[in-house]
């Protein structure tokens, strides 16, 4: 271990820890632009300069400098603050200062640090430099050369994370700018990550740009519902409509990244028409009537199967299996949806909780399914046509009924993947907390409540379901079903 002093506080760190990282452990965030913890260190922006051992002639970049035994580091000394103000001034003299129309406004470190190290007026009385604007790097990403501060996070993301070089720096000195390479538009299916890591508004998403100021939006820290990887995301919505998914850092799952397909899947959940209230034989019914009808249809459970969606949360699935166990339904199957996966983050399994369903005892639909009297579909999932062949009855609980709804004896509403609260277990076995990004509106009950009522349990809160599930399934640290609180 290495012992050093940062702003008068002693700290012990592992050898190789940088000053910036060491300062973080003390709660001191040294300003930075080019440094990003999930791509290699470059050291070009110079805003993270700190004073080491009183040397004010040469300041040290804290993002790259490893801590040394006995170092005396000052992160806010006079020399440091002067240098940092200098860097801010240099970055801003040719910056268009068009925050009022810039999508980055509100989540822009250039803005944030301006409050600390910027000046209310400018010493720059010259003509600002013009660079290329509104350059389409692809049908997903637009580049503005004048806003760019040339931190090269974007080019380094492709080189270091994606092993390709669709963009690079052209020209030199003040004329430097990011440019498309000779092979034309960026094709990488992870390219929208450069919009997130761009510390300014130089790279914007064709999909999100000009849609909404972020301070008017509502955010939910949740998990991407697009595939079994379960990349951690922040879902952003405005007035009940999802506008974007952006990755949220989780070093064990997705670091700071997510795939473009998952990111752009947000709009699939902005549904306009959905099932509201219950129906029995095509006629509106109360929830009580609908549940009573299900009990009547299922009877002793023989010849009945449950087909649960793998986007249902573990809590929902536990409520379903509790009911099934009580009425004697023994076929507990889970649905499956696939899309094209890749070798980075995107999984072929296009549902978020297959691992959770399997831990709770649900199995894939057998290839030679027994002939059924009745089928209970719980949640949003495709139903194999073979299962529907000789049914006496179909119970369907889903946010959107579709054609199948007409065949359902009992139809119940349900939550979409972004309205759920509970736990999903990803393909790596991590149990992750899911938070609702949208409200379902009137005529829709929480899925777990429906199944609880059917099962006749007295769980009053989601927490109670979670506890019951833990008790019943023996959730362990090896195969958790409940997300840890951290």
């Amino acid at each position, binding site marked *: 271990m290495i012992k050093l002093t940062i702003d008068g506080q002693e700290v012990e760190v592992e050898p190789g820890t940088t000053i910036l990282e060491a300062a973080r452990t003390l709660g001191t965030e040294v300003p930075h632009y080019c440094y990003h913890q999930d791509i290699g260190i470059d050291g070009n922006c*110079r805003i993270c*300069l700190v004073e080491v051992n009183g040397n004010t002639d040469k300041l040290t970049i804290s993002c790259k400098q490893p801590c040394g035994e006995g170092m005396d580091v000052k992160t806010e000394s006079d020399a440091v603050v002067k240098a940092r103000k*200098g860097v801010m001034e240099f970055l801003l003299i040719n910056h268009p200062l068009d925050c009022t129309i810039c999508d980055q406004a509100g989540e822009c470190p250039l803005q944030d640090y301006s409050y600390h190290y910027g000046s209310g007026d400018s010493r720059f009385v010259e003509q600002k430099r013009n660079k290329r604007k509104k350059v389409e790097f692809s049908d997903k990403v637009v580049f503005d050369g004048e806003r760019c501060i040339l931190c090269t996070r974007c080019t380094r993301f492709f080189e270091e994370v994606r092993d390709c070089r669709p963009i*690079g*720096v052209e*020209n*030199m000195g*003040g004329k430097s700018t990011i440019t498309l390479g000779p092979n034309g538009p960026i094709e990488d299916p992870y390219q929208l990550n450069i919009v997130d890591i761009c510390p300014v508004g130089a790279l914007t998403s064709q999909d999100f740009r000009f849609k909404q100021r972020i301070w008017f939006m509502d955010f939910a820290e949740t998990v991407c519902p697009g595939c079994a990887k379960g990349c951690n995301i922040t879902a952003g919505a405005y007035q009940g409509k999802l506008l974007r998914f952006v990755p949220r850092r989780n070093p064990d799952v997705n670091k700071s990244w997510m795939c473009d397909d998952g990111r752009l899947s947000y709009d699939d959940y902005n549904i306009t028409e959905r099932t509201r209230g219950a129906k029995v034989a095509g006629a509106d019914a109360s929830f009580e009537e609908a549940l009573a009808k299900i009990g009547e249809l299922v009877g002793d459970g023989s010849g009945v199967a449950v087909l649960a969606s793998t986007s249902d949360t573990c809590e929902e699935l536990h409520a379903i299996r509790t009911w099934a166990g009580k009425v004697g339904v023994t076929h507990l199957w889970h649905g499956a949806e696939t899309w094209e996966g890749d070798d980075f983050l995107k999984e072929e399994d296009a549902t978020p909780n297959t691992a959770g369903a399997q831990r709770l005892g649900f199995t894939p639909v057998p290839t030679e399914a027994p002939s059924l009297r009745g089928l209970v579909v719980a949640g949003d999932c495709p139903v194999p046509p073979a299962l529907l062949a000789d049914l006496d009855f179909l119970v369907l609980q889903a946010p959107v009924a579709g054609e199948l709804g007409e065949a359902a004896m009992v139809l119940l509403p349900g939550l979409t993947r972004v309205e759920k609260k509970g736990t999903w277990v990803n393909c790596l076995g991590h149990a992750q907390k899911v938070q609702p990004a949208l409200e379902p509106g009137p005529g829709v009950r929480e899925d777990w409540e429906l199944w609880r009522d059917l099962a006749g349990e007295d769980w009053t809160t989601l927490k109670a379901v979670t506890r019951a599930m833990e008790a019943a399934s023996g959730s362990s640290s090896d195969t958790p079903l409940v997300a840890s609180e951290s």
Partner: protein
Amino acid sequence: MKLSNVISARFDKEGSTKLKGYREDGGYETFLKVLKEKRDPAQLIDEVKTSGLRGRGGAGFSTGMKWSFVPKDSPKPKYLCVNGDESEPGTFKDRQILEKDPHQLLEGVGLASYAIGAHTAYIYLRCEFKQGIATVQKAIRKAYEAGLFGKDIQGSGYDLDVHLTMGAGAYICGEETSLLNSIEGVRPYPRNKPPFPAVEGLFACPTIVNNVETISNIPHIIKNGADWHAKLGHAEDPGSRLWCVSGHVEKPGVYEAETGFKLQDLIDGPCGGIRGGKKLKAIIPGGSSSKVLLPDEVAQVTMDTPGIRAMGSSLGSAGIIVLDETTCMVDAVLNLMKFYAHESCGQCTPCREGTPWIVQILERIERGEGREVDLELIEDLASNIEGRTVCALADGACWPLVSIVKKFRHEFLAKIPAAARKEAVTA
């Protein structure tokens, strides 16, 4: 003023570039003797250290010391890179060596490679040196043909391959880590140090980067011994250097002299004084990236590291730029700053944004639209650039700038309208 001829001894000989002539003059004997006797590389490094040789590229770091930083126990290959990207304004000495005595350099390459344990050496030349490139290329070929390079040189068991590589016209590639990136084929941004090239350089392997003139000194030092070299010129900065004199003297050119002479003597003697009998205004003594000297400082200064430091400047690449009384210093510094702004690689913020800003301010002053506060602004901007960047390009831009603004403030004020002077603004 006594001139010397160690490096330049063979420059004016007929056929000085030819292998035959070089060998007739005793060339490559030192290299082959070292190989034959299987001299201890560590002892060669000590020899160079004791000789007191300092790098001739600009920073003036002890060559032997630099060599000794190469880790002995590294399993990685080691490389020697010869920096012939000579692009410092006012500097044109390496070019003489390349065009006039390439084998002297190549023998140095052989000795230096052997000393640091390298089996591959790169000679990196600026692309505009058409003649130098052709001459060195031919010399390398001849050396290979004569069995001086290649596998198992003269049965010694020592292998050495020497490659010639070229830049594409950027000043920054003379910065040693940019040069390494350029050889590797990536964008030649300077690298943050540490790690220093001696530990992690070319292809992340231990690498020594030395200037052409530095390497050309090696055969002489190994041949004549460290003590011989240590006694040349000034005791603390010994050696015989090529001095490039340009600008307003009667006889500009490259002069070889041992360190420690008086600058005034070089100007008045071999250089024939200021052109047309005019008066001296200023000298930038170490390539453009050094602080300017006034005539009274020129009269006192001796050309060695301690002597020039005492005057607050540096020897740099020994490019002595002489400016006479007809020179407009605002114009001169604007010209220099345009160079630095143009050649800034653009990697780090203070240099990329600061140097063009300073050009804009100076241009405004030149147009007669300056303000007196601009002079303080320039100095403050320079203080936010110097020592805040990855490499020394920005430092090199600030040194002449700040020193010229300080020492020739009256010339700047003369271009500033009376209404923009401080008295007028505060009144």
